[in-house]
């Protein structure tokens, strides 16, 4: 009797551990993935060259920040010291009475960046769109 040898199409890769391998890869990518989008306060700088525009003093509010982080608000010759947390409310009020209001931020050259960002943040929270930045005198 001829015993026919069963033809074995051998040479197979064992696939039993495939899910494990893929899991490992998956975990690697899960751990390395950083979906940290850059976040921040956007601003468009004016083009170079002198960009002095005459503005009606009614439409401008100066925000002065000194080296120690104290903030003064000057509008039409009237100066008052304010706290940074009040700025949002004040800016809202000013904008509601005059929607053309420009906020001009002027800092000392030794002012902390943090305070400056706080001021900008407050203005942004009050939905102020016209913000001007004055270079400090050195």
């Amino acid at each position, binding site marked *: 009797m001829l015993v026919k040898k069963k033809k074995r199409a051998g040479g197979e890769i064992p*696939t039993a551990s*495939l*899910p494990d391998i*893929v*899991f490992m*890869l*998956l975990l690697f*990518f*899960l751990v*390395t*993935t*950083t*979906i940290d*989008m*850059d*976040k*921040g*306060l*956007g*601003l*468009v*700088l*004016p*083009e*170079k060259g002198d960009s002095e525009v005459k503005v009606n003093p009614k439409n401008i509010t100066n925000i002065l920040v000194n080296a120690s982080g104290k903030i003064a608000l000057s509008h039409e010759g009237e100066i008052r010291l304010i706290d940074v947390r009040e700025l949002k409310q004040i800016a809202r009020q000013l904008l509601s009475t005059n929607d053309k209001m420009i906020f001009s931020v002027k*800092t*000392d*050259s*030794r*002012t*902390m*960046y*943090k305070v*400056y*960002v*706080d001021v*900008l*943040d407050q203005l*942004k*929270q009050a939905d102020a769109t016209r913000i001007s*930045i004055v*270079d*400090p005198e*050195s």
Partner: protein
Amino acid sequence: MRLQRKLKTEAGIPTSSLPDIIFMLLIFFMVVTVLREFQGLKLILPEAKKIAKLEGNKHVSHIWATAEGTISIDDQIVDMSKVRTIMYEKVSADPQLTTSLKADRQTEMSLITDIHAELREGSALKLNYSAKPRE
């Protein structure tokens, strides 16, 4: 003769398609993963509430500035006077470029103003002050 009925209560989740599902997940994460391009400098970003997301990382260039006044662009420490040329080249290569300024919260404004001036000279006008969201 009592016929014993075979109990067939194997309620298993079909696992035959598990590798395929995991493969899909794997491919998703492989596509999404962007290995961090630049190390940057060690600094603490300021906090802000009203922050906007930058769209993608494609048209963004980062400038790091520490409290000590060190400036780094693309992991290279540069002089303040070089910023304008570097940024000018970047902007001419990609006009949609936004500069993301990552400055330490203790940085003095004179440095920030200098960077402003350099960016204006280099025509890189779209600026973003990188900040952490405040709770």
